[in-house]
């Protein structure tokens, strides 16, 4: 790591069948990536509750990535379609309450898109790095640590 460079903490929620496997392929292909993302494997993007993202921020994430199968590729036929609707609302809501869209990312990465995975994950990390630490959320996380009037 470069000296004094901000290293963002990224949580990536990925579906088991497409993106996790796509990331496996990136590994098998030895495609180098930045080391900031931690993947959390779930069966399907349909399983990803928007609140997971809030929990990720509460746990100190500077940015979040959600990724799954392309529409039509879903291992469970339609899980990602429901997820897509959910995210549309959630992303707008987050923006509306002041969470910069640069901290919340969505992508479709199939099991064959190892290269795309690398581009996505590196892109997210660099975008969040440019944004800097998520100080606003850090502040409300700390709100629990001081007595409130």
């Amino acid at each position, binding site marked *: 790591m470069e000296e004094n460079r901000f290293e963002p903490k990224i949580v990536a929620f990925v579906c088991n069948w497409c993106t996790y496997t796509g990331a496996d392929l990136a590994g098998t292909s030895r495609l180098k990536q930045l080391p900031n993302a931690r993947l959390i494997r779930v069966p399907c993007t349909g399983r990803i509750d*928007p*609140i997971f993202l*809030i929990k990720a921020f*509460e746990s100190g994430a500077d940015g979040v990535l959600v990724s799954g199968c392309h*529409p*039509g590729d879903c291992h469970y036929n*339609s899980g990602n*379609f*429901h997820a*897509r*609707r*959910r*995210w*549309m*609302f*959630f*992303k*707008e*809501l*987050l*923006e*509306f*309450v*002041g*969470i*910069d*869209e640069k901290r919340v*990312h*969505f*992508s*479709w990465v199939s099991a064959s898109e190892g290269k795309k995975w690398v581009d*996505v994950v590196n*892109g997210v990390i660099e975008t969040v790095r440019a944004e800097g630490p998520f100080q*606003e959320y850090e*502040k*409300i*996380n700390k*709100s*629990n640590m001081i007595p*409130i009037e």
Partner: protein
Amino acid sequence: MAQLVELAKELLESGKVSLIIGYTAKGDNATYPFIAYTAAEAEKLVFNHHCVNNLSVYINRLDIPEAGKIGIVVKGCDARALSMLIQESQIKRENVLIIGVNCNGVVKDVEMEWKKENVAPKCAVCEVRTPKLYDELIGTLEDFEKPDPTAMQIIAKIEAMTPKERWAFWQNEFDKCIKCYACRQVCPLCYCDRCIVDENTPQWIETSATARGNFSWNIIRALHQSGRCVGCGECSRVCPMGIPIGVLNMKMNMIGMSEFGFKPGMDINEPTLVGSYKFDDKENFIR
């Protein structure tokens, strides 16, 4: 309102309904929810500009055993909530007799005097002055002076802010929250036996009324209303701390409209927004 009383008496006397959820007057201005079980009690029913409450909240929350068909007085906005409750399997259509009222606007809060400044902001953008769903329809439509759509103005104001300003604005608002859950209890569509905020293994939302717990509570509440909220405005009205929570819901409704062309509770035969999808739903935000 003689028409309402006559109808209610007839329905109760004939046994078509076992009770009627309506409004009764108190003092000069105020009205409050009221349940008429008998024709004599039906005499007390009223409908006027002060009938603010969305009575559909009572439909699946009454502490009375299942006693046959329930009659209920609804405005257009309330009827939308009732439609959602039917679509969400909370009550069967045949178990409720809907007395729709042609609505000529209501005040912001029950005790307020009927004048333009006091008209509820939701009435400014109302498209359902005649309910979309009813068994009986009473009253006649009359013109009234529309108020400013203040919620829209607040949304426009917030949208014009930078993310940091928006964050500061909402943190300031959420900071007031005392987690009394009046917003939840008054909402017809918050009917869960155990709200997600009461789930503690694992804990989804911190019950503490701290900045972090208040933030997650308020936005998750808005999220759970997305594609469902009918905009009756009760949550904002009852908030003792004056947090404009309804604005979040309205913003989500605008997304439902602009991205999916959908308005909740307008037609019980349409699929609900949550729970359905289209192949070509927008995904320009997904890489």
